[in-house]
């Protein structure tokens, strides 16, 4: 039997970073406040790394462009850099490095350049951090060819998916979302990397498929019991990798249930749910028992005030009510 420990996400990420650095001397970890002198990251996610791995772990100035630039340059010279952009909104200050360079150098060089960088970044509403520290921006990156977008929902997945990101030959951005971070889970001590691009059917069901990732998997899970009480059997697919996404698993599930609801924290308008909903519509039009629906954040910046912030996030009640409407119960 696999030996596991109870950990929350940051502990699992810390364990993954230790494991990756031990296994491969080319792995580098850096970003603002990452060194032990600075506390091992603002969330403590890198605690112990600089003490153990010396100059392979470095705190950087608050310089997002050169953090990603340094990652790209080191990657071109054979390293596997894990760069932290402290908050996902701060990717806005280094989008040129991520989008124009990291994501495109392989293609633009005809395959000569390889940029195996991993960008770890924190976000999510719920901490009253307001409009510049909480956006779920996976859609920006999913819309850019050449970068993989990973959004785990639980500690074991954080560990397994981060290990895969680090070893992946292409750039990856992995989102650490507030709503997922403090729910402990069983994490294998010797976690195997979890393949990117592979969704997981978290709960099997027959009436409707919920496709979700990151924080909204947590809320969707909480919706399952009240829905079961109402006699509705839901299949929950945790996408885990937003791009490239696991069409096969999603389409197979919706072909079975005939109904699809996409739930994500990102703003609904032009959000990644639209891509999934459109694909399901294109592929399964004649087999659907109800229109595909989407739940996501309102077309608004993330607000500060607590009642507004609570209303910003898709609630368990909204998920339950929407599923009931779609099933007609």
């Amino acid at each position: 039997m696999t030996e596991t420990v109870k950990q929350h996400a940051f502990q699992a990420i810390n364990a993954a970073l230790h494991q990756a650095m031990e296994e491969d001397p080319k792995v580098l970890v850096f970003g603002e406040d990452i060194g032990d002198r600075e506390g091992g990251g603002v969330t403590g996610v890198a605690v112990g790394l600089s003490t153990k791995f010396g100059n392979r772990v470095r705190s950087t100035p608050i310089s997002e462009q050169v953090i990603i630039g340094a990652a790209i340059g080191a990657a071109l010279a054979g390293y596997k850099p894990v760069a932290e952009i402290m908050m996902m909104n701060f990717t806005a200050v280094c989008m040129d490095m991520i989008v124009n360079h990291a994501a495109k150098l392989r293609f633009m060089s005809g395959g000569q350049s390889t940029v195996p960088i991993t960008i770890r970044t924190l976000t999510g509403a719920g901490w009253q951090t307001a409009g510049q520290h909480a956006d779920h921006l996976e859609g920006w990156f999913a819309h850019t060819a050449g970068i993989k977008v990973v959004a785990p929902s639980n500690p074991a997945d954080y560990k397994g998916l981060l290990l895969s990101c680090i070893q992946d030959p292409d750039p990856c951005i992995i989102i650490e979302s507030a709503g997922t971070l403090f729910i402990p889970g069983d994490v294998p001590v010797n976690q195997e990397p979890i393949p990117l691009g592979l969704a997981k059917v978290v709960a099997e069901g027959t009436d409707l498929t919920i496709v979700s990732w990151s924080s909204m998997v947590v809320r969707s899970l909480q919706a399952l019991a009240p829905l079961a009480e109402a006699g509705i059997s839901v299949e929950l697919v945790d996408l885990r990798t937003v791009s490239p996404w696991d069409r096969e698993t999603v389409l197979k599930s919706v072909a079975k249930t005939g109904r699809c609801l996409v739930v994500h924290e990102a703003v609904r308008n032009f959000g990644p749910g639209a891509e999934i909903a459109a694909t399901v519509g294109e592929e399964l039009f004649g087999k659907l028992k109800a229109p595909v629906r989407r739940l996501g954040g309102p077309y608004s910046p993330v607000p500060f005030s607590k009642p507004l912030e609570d209303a910003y996030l898709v609630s368990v009640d909204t998920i339950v009510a929407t599923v009931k409407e779609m099933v007609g119960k």
Partner: protein
Amino acid sequence: MAEQSNSPAPSTETLVDIYRRMIRIERNDDTIRKAVRLGKLVMPYYSARGQEVIPSAISTLLTNEDTICTIYRGIHDMVAKGMPLRPLWAEIAGRVDGTCKGKGGPMHLTHPETGVMVTTGIVGSSMPIATGLGWAAQLDGSKRVSIAYFGDGASNIGAFHESLNLASLWKLPVIFVCQNNGFAEHTRYEHGTSVDFISKRAIGYGMPGYTVDGNDPWAMYAAAHEAINRARDGEGPTLLECKTFRFHGHVLGDDDKYMTKEEKAEAIAKDPLPAFRARLIAEGHATEDQLTKLQADIQAEVDDAMEFGLASAFPALDELRRDVFATEIPA
């Protein structure tokens, strides 16, 4: 303004090598411009005619292990570094035998074998990546150096600040080479830059900065020698501001409305190529015949490269699915 240096004077061999690289750049540029005007090549072309000395002098001090990151006006930097001309021409023609299989084009030429790691179309973006290549050289414990080429306009973008600060803080083996041709696209230097010399900005990062006559091979060689040695010895980065002039405006076809005809004529009269050639002969470093033959040989190499490039096939359409990721995108 450059007060250095203790660098040795370049040998005859080195001087002729600098000249050879310059002629290779100039003949290549001239042939590209003709091909564009004749419609044989369809591409945006940012000629660096007039700026030949800078990368030529620097490249005599580099090996294939040393890396450069350059910009859209950077074909002279690559040619100086030793990029072979056949795949260069195939690339700018968008053909499958190009360095990048025709998928990058003139603004993204890449050739890691000769250390041409990144060519960017984004002003300033050579610097953060060159900083990372310098970090890798340091981590490897190697003597490699990383060159970041950029223009005067790029010294006003945030990436310049972040890169110079980090490179100095970590003592990285990076040489920041600003090719100051007096214009940021169409904007005159003094209308976009707050100081009279970009080299003055180095002091704010705790690194040496020099302004060099970028059209003077001796001065360029001396400055590059000092900066590269400093980087190889683990003493950190240097900012070199190399003053020069671009003969053909921002992009080919530019009518240079933002400068006077007299000003342009005066700058072109200072063409470094004939001046250098005359001095090489006058000082006995080379003979007229030798340099004439050198030029003819290089023109033959360029003509062969053009023929090769234009005869190469266009890439297959499934190249759209390759190199997006390491694994091909399913059809």
